């Protein structure tokens, strides 16, 4: 009873759970232009899912697996996640195709859709992050606007059925194997969680300033985290407006929804927020934006160490995947159509 009253008064006054504040970019997350100023990368069509196989960095571009020297493999569906198995074989998750390992699809993994990330743990088992069991991968912004919590994390060992380690998750979007369990980035919940082998869930980071995507180990023993789009008070408001969301989803083209975006500023049909009004020929870099580029380095205790940004009006937006190998930080800018090679050490204090 008190709880219901509290919710009601919160909603009336915009307090508590109804508050629309988003966390500030502060401390190690202080904005900079390191992504935007980085040297030109490899042009790519909406790249995602970076992996390193035998010292060579691969990524997904549509239906193809690419490297810097050209296509490596091709599937029938859009590739959404890649991983390298302990035996060196490539696991490819593609929409409508399930997960192919070394070119063959185990029957247990054939029916999977909306696979957002793959990773192998120390025992060699394959962990599978399924963003949504309701919508296909391409409809992720609808999944977001419908406030879905239908994601799950599966663990599969060859020759068995996948085991559900956690379900009812808000779009698990990245996996990182650690000694004490699998770290999962949960996009709509804006948090990092850890699942141990028994499926017990521990929250590692909460209230992230953006929607998290790919995770990768860092050379320093911590982790790299890509946040594919920024949060904003307008998004928080829209999430609390069911009638408006319904009408918008029914009438408006999905790319012009008020929803996180991988890129923005290319069409005048996009929703614009007040602070983004150009003045005297300048778009303020701190203007509210639908998309941005943000990569954060975390230490072993998941405390942010440094961050790389591409802010409002920039090009390197929508970073969905990161990878550190051989002293180079690779980042896939899905919105900016570019695979970036960055210096990971510059911001380390």
């Amino acid at each position, binding site marked *: 009873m008190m709880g219901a009253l509290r919710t009601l008064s919160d909603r009336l006054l*915009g307090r508590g759970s109804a508050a*629309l504040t988003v966390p500030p970019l502060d401390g190690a997350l202080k904005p900079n232009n390191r992504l935007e100023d980085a040297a030109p990368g490899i042009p790519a069509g909406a790249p995602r899912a970076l992996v390193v196989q035998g010292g060579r960095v691969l990524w997904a571009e549509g239906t193809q697996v690419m490297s810097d020297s050209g296509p490596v493999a091709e599937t029938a569906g859009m590739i959404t996640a890649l991983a390298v198995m302990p035996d060196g074989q490539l696991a490819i998750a593609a929409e409508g195709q399930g997960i192919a390992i070394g070119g063959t699809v185990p029957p247990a993994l054939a029916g999977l859709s909306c696979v957002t990330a793959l990773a192998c743990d120390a025992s060699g088992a394959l962990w599978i992050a399924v963003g949504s069991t309701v919508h296909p991968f391409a409809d992720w912004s609808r999944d977001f606007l419908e406030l879905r919590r239908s994601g799950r994390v599966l663990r599969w060992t060859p020759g068995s059925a996948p085991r559900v380690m956690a379900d009812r998750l808000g779009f698990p979007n990245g996996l990182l194997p650690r000694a004490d369990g699998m770290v999962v980035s949960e996009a709509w919940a804006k948090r990092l969680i850890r699942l141990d082998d028994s499926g017990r869930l521990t929250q590692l980071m909460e209230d992230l300033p953006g929607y998290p995507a790919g995770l990768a180990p860092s050379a320093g023993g911590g982790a790299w985290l890509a946040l594919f789009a920024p949060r*904003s*008070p*307008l998004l928080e*408001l829209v999430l609390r*407006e069911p*009638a*408006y969301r319904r*009408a*918008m989803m*029914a*009438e*408006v*083209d999905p790319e*012009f*929804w*008020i929803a996180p975006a991988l890129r923005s500023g290319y069409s*005048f*049909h*996009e*929703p*614009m*927020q*007040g*602070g*983004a*009004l*150009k*003045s*005297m*020929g300048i*778009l303020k870099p701190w*203007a*509210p934006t639908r998309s941005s580029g943000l990569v954060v380095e975390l230490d072993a205790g998941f405390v942010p160490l440094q961050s790389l940004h591409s802010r409002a009006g920039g090009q390197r937006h929508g970073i969905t995947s990161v990878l550190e190998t051989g002293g180079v930080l690779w980042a896939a800018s899905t919105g900016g159509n570019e695979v970036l090679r960055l210096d990971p050490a510059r911001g380390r204090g």
Partner: protein
Amino acid sequence: MARAGTLARLRYRFIPDHVIGEILSKKWIDNAIPFLVLVVVIAAFGMLLPNFFSAGNLSMTGRQLGEFALVCLAMMTVIIVGGIDLSVGSNFALGNFTALALLNLAGWPVWAAIPATVLVCGSVGLVNGLLIGFLRLRAFLTTLVTLIIVRAIVDMLLLKYAQAMSMSFFDDPFWDLVGMGDVLGLPFSFAVLVVVALVGHILITRSRPGWRAMAIGGSRRSAHNIGLPVRGIVCSAYTISGMLCGLAGVLYAARLSGAGSDTGMGLEIMALTAAVLGGNSLGGGRGSVVKALIGAVIVLVMTNGVLRLGLNSGSGPMVLGLTLLFAVFIDVRWLKNRDKLLNKVYVSPTLVEMPEPRSTSEGAFAVNDRLADVEIIGLGEIESPEDVILDEDDILYTGTRHGDIVRFFPPDYKRHEVFAHVGGSPLGMSFDRDKNLVVCIGGMGLYKVAPDGTVSKMTDETNRSPLSVVDDSRLRLADDCDITPDGKVYFSEATVRYEMHDWPVDALESRGNGRIICHDPATGKTHTVVRKLVFPNGVCTARDGQSVLFAESWGCRINRLWVSGPKAGKVEVVVDRLPGYPDNINRASDGTYWCAIMGMRSPALDVALRMPGFRRRMSRRIAPDQWLYPNLNIGCVIRFNDQGEVLESLWDRGAKNHPMITSMREHKGWLYLGGITNNRIGRVRLKDADPTWSAWSDYWGKRA
């Protein structure tokens, strides 16, 4: 496109939400709570007491009120200047005694005794005023001392003269009239009160001394700093207070013809309660005659009522005390929260169902790069060139956000100078027959700049609408103007509810807050022609000379207003379903018209326009920087004809130079572009345009 429900449509059509905010923004709303208390008190005692509304009781109460309210007015006068007068009670007693003594003992005639009494009491006020105003003593202590001393003097005089006074009896018809008689059916003292209150109200709200007194009460130091004679005004406030007490004392004397030591005892507390209860702020600077009167009625009805209810002797002051506590509490809370409440409720979006926009992927609106190779003028040298205009000598004029009219000189437009400084935000411009530049100034009104650069005001007000709550006689946001062949200036005022820089809030509301106004320089008269337009913006006299084209920005349409001929006064739509928000309209050389489209509609916003509740919550919950705006980062220029056909559009696809185009002007084969958020003017060569055409010749004939 989906439609809103009938119920929602009716609700937003007939329930005027915006009026609540407008009422709350009025000064007189301060009286709402005291007035409510007044109604409750009268209703309560009217029910509790028999004969409350009988003629006898009302007449009696009216007489008492005449005296008591004068004392309350006395208290209010000093409270307004930030002081307090505790000596009103003793002064009242002194007035009562003086009047009786002069008439009964000294045998003065009434016409001499009354002014003399008023003067005696006024001199007590003057002493207060001199001590507080000039010697800067504390008002509370000083008047407390006067309270004691005057009371002592009255007591001593009573001791000496009371017996003599009670022996004699003064008989005079006028004196009886003052005490018992009626004027125009009103008890005499009540009639006096009405006169005093009217004069006082006019003095305080509409005269220089009244405004100065308010200013001093609001901030004595600031009033001093701007050069007001603070001391003199404070002193005269106390003097007036004393004189009002004297007048009240005379009325009391005439009614009761008796002086006792308890006359006016505790009156200062009652008067203070009444003044504060009515909403006069003890801090000063906020008060009115009406507030004092409301307070006086409440206190009088309550004290009399408690007395007549026969409660025990302590209960009267107890009720009074509790009421005072309640009044102070409400006063503080109200002052603190009124603006917060106003902020919350003022913005009231309305339901707008936008028609499906015309396509921008094909047809006349197809996006192109025709503005890509624009020639830049004055980059970084001007800010906010909302409108641009050229004269017959090819000199380019534009307004800036610094309130200047800047002009650039041909042939290369590199050299510029400030032509005139007007102030405000210069927006739309037009040349009249005598080559005067007529300019709409946001925040100021309609101004004229002569060819030699002298600035004169044409108008800054129009007729007030009878039913508008906000005072819409002042021009807040004159936006664009044009002149008809008979010399009348038609101009748009975008909104009457917001100041210029709050235009995004008006966009959020999307209500018909704007209007088209006509100013006739021949007569100097200004009147509103059309009301309830959705952000009327660009104005252009049509070729026929009988009508004016104007754009309704948030309505995404261009209308025609007939100003003469058979259809005079009618408004009809010329172009609708625009994919963007139209701004200024100007003539093109081939008989058509240019219109600037300042920004484009986004489908997500169109949906929100149908959902006023969503927009209202957005305005309350998130910062304006985060609001969903019309997309003003890209626009275009369109050309349309009298039939409303859109012929072509010119785009700057990447919006590199001209993100928000608010105006364009064709001149001798070039099209000049201005933008209110820009820091440059652009010009682009028009291929098929007449290279000799200029707007002034088109309007006013060939060069004389």
